[in-house]
C-alpha cells in the first residue's frame, strides 16, 4: 500500500509542477512526500492535513474531556457542583440559566428536569456512558473481527468455512434485534451469581461487551477480503521461506498491511455503535435507570417537548456531535489510508486534456475496475475464492436503525487495484 500511495503522490506532485490548474483536492493538503517517510508518517501527515477530520478530532476531544472531567470517572471526582442523580430545588422553573448577554453560565446552564436534577450533569454522565460503550464495542468488535477475519482469510479451507458460516448466521439476524436480546441478557439481575453482581455495578461495561459480541461481523468480512489478497503477495512467500510461523506471518507481516481497513472500519463501527447504544437505551433495553445515557434522556423527556424543550435538545445535540465528529475522523482516516477517492475531477480532467494529455492519463489507471462492491468479491480474489458470497452483505458498517448502511468508501484499499499496481 505504501508503495502505491507514494507513487500516486509523486504523480500528484508532478501534476502540481506541470500546471497551475492541478490543485490537489480542497480540504486535503498538498502532500509532497519525500523519500524515507514510513507509512505511519505519511498517513499522519495526510490525516492532519484533512481539515474536516481535524475539526472532528478537536470536537470529539473537547466533548471527551468535558464529559469525563465534569462528572468524574471511577474514583476521580468531577469539577461540576452537581451529581447527575442529585435533586436540587428548581431555579426559574428549571429553564436553562445560560445567557449570552451578559455572558454567564448560571447555576444550571442546560436547565433542570421536572424533579430538579441538573441537566448539564445528566448530559455529561450520559455522554460519558455513551463514549464508554462506544469504545468498548469498538475494541471488542475490533479484536474479534480482526481475529476471525484474519484466521479465515489466511488459513482458508475448513477454518474459513466454519468461521464464515458463523459470521453469516450472526449477520442474518438483524443487529438491533440481536442487540436487544443481548442487552436483555446482560441486564438480568435475577440470580445471585458473580455475573449478576458484576453486571449490577458495571452495567455499561457489560452492555458494551455484549454488543461487541454482535457487532464484529462486517469487520471480519472486510479483514478476510483483505487477507485473501495479501496472502498471495511475495512478502508472505518470503516470510514463509525464511521459516516464520503462521501466527508470525499473520500478525507481524499481513496485519500491518491491512491496518488501514481495520482502523477505518473500526472508526465507522464506533460511530454506528453510538447510535446503536442510544437507540437501545431509547427503546428501554440498553442503559437502564437510575443510571443514565443520552438515548435514555431523550426517551424520558420526549413527552415534555412542548413544555421543557431544553431537556430534549441538549442530549440530542451531544449524540449528533459525537457521532458526526467520529464520522469525520473516519472519513479523514479513509482519505489518509486510501487515497484512491481523491484523484478524479471532471473539470480538471477536461482542462488538463487541453493542456497536456500525458498527465491526464495518470489518475485513470489505479482506480479502474475496482468497483466498491466488488472490492472484496470474487473478481478480486481471482481464482482463489470459490464463491461470491463475500460480496453480499458486505454493505459496510451495520447501523442500528437502518439495517446495513453501506459506506462504500469504507472498504479501504481495493485489493485488486493493489495487485495490479507494480
Amino acid at each position, binding site marked *: 500500500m505504501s508503495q502505491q500511495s507514494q507513487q500516486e503522490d509523486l504523480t500528484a506532485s508532478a501534476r502540481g509542477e506541470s500546471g497551475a490548474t492541478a490543485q490537489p483536492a480542497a480540504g486535503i493538503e498538498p502532500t509532497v512526500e519525500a523519500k524515507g517517510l514510513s507509512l505511519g508518517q505519511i498517513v499522519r501527515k495526510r490525516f492532519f492535513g484533512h481539515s474536516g477530520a481535524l475539526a472532528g478530532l478537536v470536537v470529539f476531544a473537547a466533548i471527551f474531556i468535558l464529559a469525563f472531567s465534569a462528572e468524574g470517572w471511577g474514583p476521580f471526582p468531577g469539577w461540576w457542583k452537581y451529581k447527575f442523580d442529585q435533586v436540587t430545588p428548581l431555579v426559574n422553573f428549571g429553564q436553562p440559566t445560560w445567557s449570552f448577554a451578559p455572558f454567564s453560565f448560571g447555576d444550571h446552564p442546560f436547565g433542570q428536569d421536572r424533579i430538579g436534577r441538573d441537566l448539564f450533569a445528566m448530559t455529561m454522565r450520559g455522554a460519558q456512558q455513551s463514549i464508554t460503550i462506544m469504545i468498548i464495542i469498538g475494541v471488542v468488535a475490533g479484536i474479534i473481527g480482526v481475529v476471525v477475519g484474519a484466521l479465515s482469510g489466511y488459513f482458508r479451507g475448513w477454518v474459513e468455512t466454519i468461521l464464515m458460516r458463523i459470521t453469516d448466521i450472526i449477520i442474518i439476524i438483524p443487529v438491533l434485534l440481536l442487540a*436487544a436480546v443481548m442487552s436483555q441478557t446482560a441486564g438480568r439481575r435475577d440470580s445471585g451469581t458473580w455475573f449478576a453482581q458484576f453486571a449490577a455495578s458495571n452495567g455499561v461495561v457489560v452492555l458494551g461487551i455484549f454488543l461487541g459480541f454482535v457487532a464484529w461481523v462486517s469487520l471480519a468480512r472486510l479483514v478476510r477480503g483483505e487477507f485473501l489478497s495479501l496472502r498471495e503477495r511475495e512478502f508472505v512467500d518470503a516470510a514463509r521461506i525464511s521459516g516464520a510461523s503462521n501466527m508470525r506471518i499473520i500478525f507481524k507481516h499481513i496485519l500491518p498491511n491491512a491496518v488501514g481497513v481495520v482502523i477505518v472500519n473500526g472508526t465507522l463501527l464506533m460511530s454506528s455503535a453510538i447510535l446503536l447504544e442510544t437507540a437501545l437505551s431509547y427503546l428501554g433495553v440498553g442503559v437502564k435507570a437510575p443510571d443514565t445515557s443520552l438515548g435514555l434522556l431523550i426517551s424520558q423527556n420526549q413527552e415534555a417537548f412542548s413544555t421543557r424543550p431544553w431537556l430534549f435538545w441538549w442530549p*440530542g445535540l451531544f449524540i449528533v456531535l459525537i457521532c*458526526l465528529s467520529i464520522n469525520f475522523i473516519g472519513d479523514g482516516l479513509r482519505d489518509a489510508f486510501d487515497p484512491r477517492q481523491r484523484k478524479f475531477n*471532471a473539470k480538471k480532467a477536461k482542462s488538463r486534456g487541453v493542456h497536456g494529455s500525458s498527465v491526464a492519463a495518470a489518475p*485513470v489507471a489505479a482506480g479502474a475496475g475496482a468497483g*466498491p462492491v*466488488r472490492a472484496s468479491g470474487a473478481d478480486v480474489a481471482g481464482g482463489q475464492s470459490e*464463491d*461470491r458470497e463475500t460480496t*453480499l452483505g458486505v454493505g459496510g458498517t451495520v447501523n442500528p436503525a437502518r439495517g446495513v448502511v453501506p459506506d462504500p468508501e469504507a472498504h479501504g484499499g481495493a485489493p485488486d487495484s493493489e495487485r495490479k499496481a507494480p
Partner: protein
Amino acid sequence: MVTYVVRRLITAALILLGASFLVYNLTALSGDPLADLRASNAPNAAQLMQARSQLLDLSTPAPIRYFKWLGGAAGCVVGNCNLGMNLVGQPVTQALGQALVQTITLVTGATVLAILIGVALGIVTALRQYSALDYGVTFMAFLFFSLPIFWVAVLLKEFGAIDFNNFLADPTIPLPVSLGIGIVLGIIAAVVSSGALRRRAINGAIVFAFVTLVCIVASITRWFSTPGLGLGVILIVGVGLAFGITVLAAGLQNRRALYAGLTTVLIGAIAYFPVQPLLDEATGLMIFILAVVTVLVGVAVGWFWGGYDRGQGMRVGGITAFLVGALVVLDRFMQAWPGYYNNRSIRGRPIATIGGSTPNLQGDFWQHGLDSFTHLILPTIALVLISLASYTRYTRSSMLEVMNTDYIRTARAKGASERSVVMRHAFRNALIPISTVVALDIGQLIGGAVITETVFSVPGMGYMFLQGISHVDPNPVMGVFACVAITALAFNLIADLVYSALDPRVRVK
C-alpha cells in the same frame, strides 16, 4: 449456474436453521415470561400463570420447544402453517399478516423515495466534485448519517405535525416569513448553481423572486385551505417536464423527441376536463389501468413522431405522459382536501403523529388516499432522511469510479456529447453496484424500521418483534425473524445473480 444456485440454497437453509435455533434460545433465556404475573397481586394470578405456562409450553426446556416450533414451521412448506401463539393466544401467522401490511405500506414509499433522491444527488455531486454543492451534500450526508432517528422523529412530530396543523387552521403566511423563505431558497440556489459569480447571483435572485411571489399568492388566496393545481399550472409544469426529460433522455437536438413530449403534454391538458367525472368514481384498479393507458399513449405519440431515433422519442413520450398523469391525479387529490379537512373524524388536525390510518373514516377513494398520506408523511420523511445519506455516498463513489474508466475517456475522445457520456456511458454502469445495494435493502425492508414504528406507533413487524423481546415471548419473535431472514437470504442470492447478469466480468461458479 444451476449448481451454484442449489448450493447457495442449501447453505442458506443451514444458516437459517442455525440462526433460528440461536434466536429462539436467546429469546427464551433472556428473561422470565411470567415476570409481570409474579409481580401482580391479582387474586387469580396463580391460575393465570398456570394458563400461560400451558399456552407457551413452559414445562418443556427451550431447546426442545424450538424443535416443536420447527415442526410447526416446517408445515408452512406444505401449506399447513403453524407458527405457534403469542402471549395473548393469537396465532402468530395471523398477527404476522397484519404487521406485514403495516410495515410494507410504511417502508416501501420511503425506500423508493430515498433511492430516487439519493441516486440523483449522488450523480450530481460526483459530476461536480469539490464544488460547493458537493461539500454541502457531503456534509448533509454525514449529518443525516449521525442523526438518531428517534430524535428526528420527535422533532418531526413537534414541527411537522403540531405546528403545521396550527398553520393549516389559519393558512396565511406573514410577509416577513415569505421573504425569509425566499431569501433562504435564493441563497441555496445561488450556492448550488454552477458558473461564474454573476450567473449564480442572477439564479439566486430569480429563485428568490419566484418563491416569495408564490408564498404571497398562496397566502392571499388561502391556497392551503383549498389547494389545487388547475389546468394552467399543469400545462406550464408539463412543458417544463417535457423539456427536462428531453434534455436528459434524448438531448435537445433531437427535435422530434421534444415534439413528442410537448404533444403528450397537450393531450394531457385536453384530457384534463373529460377525465374528471371518471376520476370521481375512482378505485385503485382504475387508477392503475389509467396509468398504463397514459404511458401507452405517450409511447404511441413518440412512435408517431418517429425520427432518426424512434426509441428516444417513445421514451420521452412515455415518461412525460406518466408524469403529467401523476400531476392530474395529484390535482384531484388536492381537490379532495377540503372535504377531508372538514371530515368529522379528522377534527381539524390532518397531519397525524401516530398510527397508520384514522379509524372509522367515512369517505371516498380520494379521502382514504389523503388519510394514508397524512399518516405516512412524517415517518416517511424520517426514514428518507436517514437512509438518504448512504445512497448518496454510494452513488457518488460509484459514479466517480466509473468516470475514471478508460471507456469514458474513449467516449469523450470520439466526441460524444456530455449528456451522452454521462447518461449513456457513465450513469448506467454506475448503477450496477447500486443495484446490489438496492436489492439487499429491499430484502431487509420487511424487517421494518423498529424505532420508527415504535415512535409513530405503527403496529408493524419491528414493533411486533420488540414486543416479543420485551415480554420474553419467542413465537412472534421467531415469526418475524423467519420472514426477515428468508427474504434477506433470498435477496442476497438475487443480488448476486443480478450482479453477474449486469456485469459479465463477474461470473458465478
